[in-house]
């Protein structure tokens, strides 16, 4: 069972040197901007900025291509969906109708619709570079420390770190359980009846659950034996202090947020409207 997952890519670049916390804050602010605004200019700017930073981080496209291809497919479907369900959304939003192609019923393709759907896609694209960067340039070990630093309770932050720690284990565990059961004569090739297949599947699901639940027991015992959660606060072996570049990055993101909000308020609408 191949599982495509993004993972840390070690390079010596300024982006990698930034603390996880700073990157996380930027990512969040960036997402907020993208969520709140439909201002094409802002979105385009964000996209360009994202691509540039992506270059700086020296991440190769090939390293994340599987994700990109997925995203493109998703966006395509999403756009089709929008068009099928609401071909006149654009007009509804921008108040004008410039028909490009005459089609039966309400399905005539309008400039507004295209523009609206362009924005929807942009909103998505504008965040992707940052999300990707945050994942592939932040060491998993630093992840929890970062969450904690931006104010997430360290207990919850540590839950995230446990997740990152156990994904490979669970993956391997699942794999080996499947093997063990097959070695005992369980047939997993899907050529039987549904009921039987469920019974077979349960031969894997049950050990996986037992494995999981007693892992939970043993791990919490181990953590208890080493005094997790005794104090109100916690220090991190991999935590890193903010440096100049971190402050600059955050400042930049904040300014952009303010700008975008200012534009929205001043316009009195989320939508930048070139048609009137």
């Amino acid at each position: 069972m191949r599982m495509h997952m993004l993972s840390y890519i070690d390079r010596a670049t300024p982006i990698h040197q930034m603390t996880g916390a700073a990157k996380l804050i930027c990512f969040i602010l960036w997402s907020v901007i993208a969520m709140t605004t439909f201002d094409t200019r802002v979105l385009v700017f964000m996209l360009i900025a994202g691509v540039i930073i992506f270059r700086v981080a020296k991440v190769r496209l090939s390293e994340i291509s599987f994700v990109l291809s997925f995203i493109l497919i998703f966006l395509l479907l999403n756009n089709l969906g929008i068009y099928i369900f609401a071909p006149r959304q654009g007009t509804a939003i921008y108040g004008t109708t410039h028909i490009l192609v005459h089609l039966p019923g309400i399905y005539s393709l309008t400039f507004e619709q295209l523009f609206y759907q362009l924005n929807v896609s942009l909103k998505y694209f504008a965040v992707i570079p940052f999300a990707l960067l945050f994942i592939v340039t932040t060491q998993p070990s630093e992840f929890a420390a970062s969450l904690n630093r931006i104010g997430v309770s360290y207990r919850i932050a540590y839950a995230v770190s446990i997740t990152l720690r156990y994904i490979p284990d669970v993956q391997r565990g699942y794999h080996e359980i499947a093997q063990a059961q097959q070695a005992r004569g369980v047939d997993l090739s899907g050529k039987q009846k549904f009921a039987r297949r469920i019974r077979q599947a349960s031969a894997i699901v049950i050990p996986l659950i037992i494995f999981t639940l007693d892992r939970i027991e043993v791990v919490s015992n181990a953590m208890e034996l080493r005094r997790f959660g005794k104090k109100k606060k916690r220090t991190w072996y991999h935590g890193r202090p903010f440096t100049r570049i971190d402050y600059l990055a955050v400042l930049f993101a904040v300014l952009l947020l303010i700008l975008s909000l200012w534009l929205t308020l001043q316009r009195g609408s989320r939508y930048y409207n070139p048609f009137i």
Partner: protein
Amino acid sequence: MNKKVISFKQFSFKYRSQESPSLYDINLAINQGERILITGPSGSGKSTLGRCINGLIPNTFKGEIKGALERMGGDAGDQRIPALSKKVGTVLQDTDAQFIGLTVGEDIAFALENDAVPQVEMKKTVAQAAKQVGMELFLDQSPHDLSGGQKQRVSMAGVLVDPVSILLFDEPLANLDPASGKATMHLIDRIQKETGVTVVIIEHRVEDVLAIGIDRIVLVADGKIVADAPPDQLLCSGVLEANGVREPLYLTALKRAGIPIVPELHPESLDHMSLDGAGAALLAWTHAAVSEKEHLLGQPILNVSHVNFHYESDRPTLEDVSFSVRKGERIALVGKNGAGKSTLTKLICGLEHPDSGTIYIGGGDISTQTIKERSEHIGLVMQNPNQMISQNMIFDEVAFGMRLRGFAEEEIKRRVYESLKICGLYPYRNWPVSALSFGQKKRVTIASILVLDPDLLILDEPTAGQDYRHYTEIMRFLESLSEKGMTLIMITHDMHLMLEYTERALVMADGRLIADQPPAELLSDADIASRANLKTTSLYHLAERVGFSSPPTFVKHFIQSEQGRRSCDENAHAQLH
């Protein structure tokens, strides 16, 4: 020196789900700086005793406590684990689960992080602890890149960052190859000497633990402490053997040769033991003839040729492995932790597929067969029992394979009970697997494969965490099967098991097959032995110490006489019924 750190008085404990206590009237006092070995049959309550010492009982394992347990003066009830854990450092049986951090450094630092120790200081302490256990170069490794022995060291460093006054180890040697095991024991020894902590070791491999010098042996048998004495006395009393725990081999040999073991001889360590006059007796004994069992072999049934394999990582796990096995052979597959033994068995069963090379069974290439088809001929008992167990109740678990193959219920019942008896699990047949100790679980998986009697049986460390009695019962049964023509491949770290029950050893190191020869010769080949982290048994040293010309022949004689004794017992047994 003799300040009490732990004291049990009339103590008994009953797990919530149990009807009767798993520990009862325990009286035990442990003093500061002592080295204690807790041993006893599998399922006797050793780990439970350990849990009482580190406070998991009663704090997380619920149940009924009677009597008194004092830790460091305080009373058990009011001692929360956090306070306690600064004093008692525990290294669990399952090092994978104990490894919490994403990297070695982080894991060692875990306790310090929780105490909110400033980072600078933390890094210093971690560096020290890592150095103490010789892992300073691995600080950025993730747990998946470490061998069993290395994980053990990390866990140790993780508890050493605290000023603990008790170090508690639950079966530290269970899955380590001989050399790593030895290294671990020496590490424990050194740390104890440097820090003067109290060391409590739970272990089946008594001989290996004694090697570092132990103050007291505590023998636990079904929930009670049956003996608590310094090694020299306890070893003379024969109480270990009586309770189905293996005593050091050299002592067995000396006894067989009719030499009475008395404390004055210092039996606890072969190096310091006085053997004046023993030589003659041993020599005489070796000349006494013993019945030799001839074991004839059939056609080749397994043929592995030029197999290469690697997991996700580009590093090869198996390189150009070739060997062939004949029907009825008994083979030991031995070698370093991480050498690729378990992986090889997975390939044979078709759980993984070779990158190149072929595997034939009974002459036919099996690359085309599905795992299920192969499972008709090959039975595999995996290293980790938890991965095999898919049913809730023990009976169903053992019956599972037969039910899949559609046997009749009464036939199933008969054979399941039979194999449960062989594995000493019959009394537990109606228990859920979850209530068993580690060794008991392992036996459940062995029973669940035995019941299918396959042509080729592969056992991955069948005796890990087993006590001597169950281990011999299982091994005898396997012997009888192989005389009926079943082929056995056993992965093991137990050199004596290899010598005693197999006539051929395949040796692996770093993914390669580096030797294929009779076990006895193997151990006398120093180069191979060191490359594969193997070590000779104490019988060799005994032979050397009394100045025998060829230790291997002595070992051979010992094993043959043991086999002779066993068959005698069996005959006696047969006549009884």
